[in-house]
């Protein structure tokens, strides 16, 4: 079986992008990825577009995006795995190469969340669960789903509001070093703790923003990858899992079972262990989500996520630096783009091209952790220099 590598990456500026429509926004990262890979776009046999949609005007983003980029005759589809749609797109592109369909495929993640008003966006994300039993009568919001986890984690393990705010401070610290991040300013612990409550105990600075953005990766088979580049980054393991739509059908609220399962599968497929990971992106749509991810991915024991952030174990110089691109919290979270953006970031890290937020690379192994919804979907992708 061939191996598959990331051979080209592209990433738009994230933020409130009133200067571009959905196709123009996607094109920014597509063009960069094509140039970075040095491929002729005629050689791309499959374009998978990850996007949740509903908050921008186009109903068929895949064909609109492809037409704009002159890729209209390429086979395409839009995939949805909520906030993990980007990782689902990478996986579908990866599978198309493994299946022998073609030697080069592209995954594009794109979302435009600011063309409708904020409360409508909040409404659309709040429906990302089991509509009839969580939204129709109870108006759940995305922060509320994670707040239910935060309260449980605090109650069971003594995690504090301050621990969660530390995750935000770290995110903004590194986001300030990433010119593509939505937020470019550092924040203090006091400022995070004093911010407006969104859904108790989660505050404004515990929550990722609404973001417009795109990211693209070009994948190639081993034979083609070695011709195209001296620095291929290999996809060594892809694990994915899912869980109930209704939160009431979950066993507990101190972690995400789908993340645990996805990680297990990715570690098994790649042969890597948590201790071998040089750098990771973890799905920090809310600060509590990052703390739970440390535990679910095996970076520490269950209940010790807060200890990791207190000790600085996930900063540069710590055991496993996490979200050095600013994470969803500071870089922004354009839902369908996020998983591809994470893959771009880890590829940059493993190529030693991350600039001011570069992690030291020892084993040449990086990890992408991307959650859809509130643990409804989870993808873990392990990338490697060898």
């Amino acid at each position, binding site marked *: 079986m061939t191996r598959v590598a990331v051979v080209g990456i592209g990433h738009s500026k994230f933020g409130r992008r*009133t*200067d571009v429509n959905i196709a123009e926004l996607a094109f920014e990262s597509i063009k960069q990825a094509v140039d970075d890979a040095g491929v002729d776009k005629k050689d791309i046999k499959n374009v998978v577009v990850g996007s949740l949609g509903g908050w921008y*005007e186009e109903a068929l983003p895949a064909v609109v995006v492809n037409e704009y980029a002159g890729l209209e005759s390429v086979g395409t589809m839009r995939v949805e795995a909520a906030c993990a749609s980007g990782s689902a797109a990478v996986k579908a592109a990866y599978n198309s190469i493994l299946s022998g369909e073609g030697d080069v495929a592209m995954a594009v993640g794109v979302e435009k969340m600011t063309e409708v*008003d904020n*409360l*409508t966006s*909040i*409404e659309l994300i*709040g429906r990302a669960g*089991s509509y*009839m*039993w*969580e*939204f*129709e*009568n*109870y*108006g*759940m*919001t995305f*922060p*509320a789903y994670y*707040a*239910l*986890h*935060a*309260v*449980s984690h605090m*109650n069971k393990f003594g995690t504090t509001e301050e621990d969660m705010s530390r995750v935000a401070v770290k995110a903004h610290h590194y986001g300030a070093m990433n010119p593509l991040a939505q937020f470019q300013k550092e924040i203090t612990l006091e400022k995070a703790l004093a911010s*407006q*409550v*969104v*859904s*108790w*105990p*989660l505050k404004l600075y515990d929550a990722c923003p609404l973001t417009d953005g795109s990211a693209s990766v070009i994948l190639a088979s081993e034979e083609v990858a070695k011709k195209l580049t001296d620095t291929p980054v290999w996809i060594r393991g892809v694990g994915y899992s899912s869980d109930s739509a*209704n*939160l*009431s*059908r*979950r066993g507990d*609220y101190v972690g995400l079972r789908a993340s645990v399962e996805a990680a297990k599968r990715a570690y098994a497929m790649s042969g890597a262990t948590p201790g071998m990971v040089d750098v990771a992106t973890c799905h920090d749509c809310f600060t509590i989500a990052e703390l739970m991810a440390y535990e679910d991915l095996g970076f520490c024991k269950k209940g010790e996520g807060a200890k990791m952030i207190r000790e600085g174990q996930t900063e540069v110089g710590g055991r496993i630096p996490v979200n050095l691109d600013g994470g969803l919290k500071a870089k922004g979270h354009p839902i369908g783009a996020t998983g591809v953006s994470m893959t771009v970031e880890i590829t940059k890290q493993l190529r030693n091209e991350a600039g001011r937020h570069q992690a030291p690379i020892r084993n040449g192994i990086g990890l992408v952790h991307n959650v859809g919804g509130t643990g409804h979907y989870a993808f873990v992708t392990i990338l490697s220099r060898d």
Partner: protein
Amino acid sequence: MQEDPILHSRRSLTLKFDIPISRTHEFWDALRQGRFVTTKCAKCGQVSFPPQSDCPKCMNGEFAWVDLGREATLVTSTYVEIIPASFAENGHYIVAICELTNGLKVLAWLEGIDYEKAKPGMRVKVEGRMSKEGNPYYVFVPA
């Protein structure tokens, strides 16, 4: 900073769904009469909440309605301050997940208590409510 030129679309889109409930309408009918019930598979005995007419365990399609009782224990909760557009008239609310005596969990609003006093482990009970449009729903209140 100068604002980018924007085309404000003239076409608005309102979505209102007519959701079929014929397979499990007895749940809502019972709720109107003050009973809180759910489905039990006639073949393997699996009790499901939310109710569903097909068993998720053995995929059998025959079921009976069973009473869930009203007593429950709070597992986790949150006070929702920023609320969705379609709940704008509502004001803030507490959402809780509580565990019934048979071990099934239910998500609903928790009413009749200040949020600071809502703690995991506290005893609550299920009560029926009616929306102003005439749709029944259920909430938790302190026991």
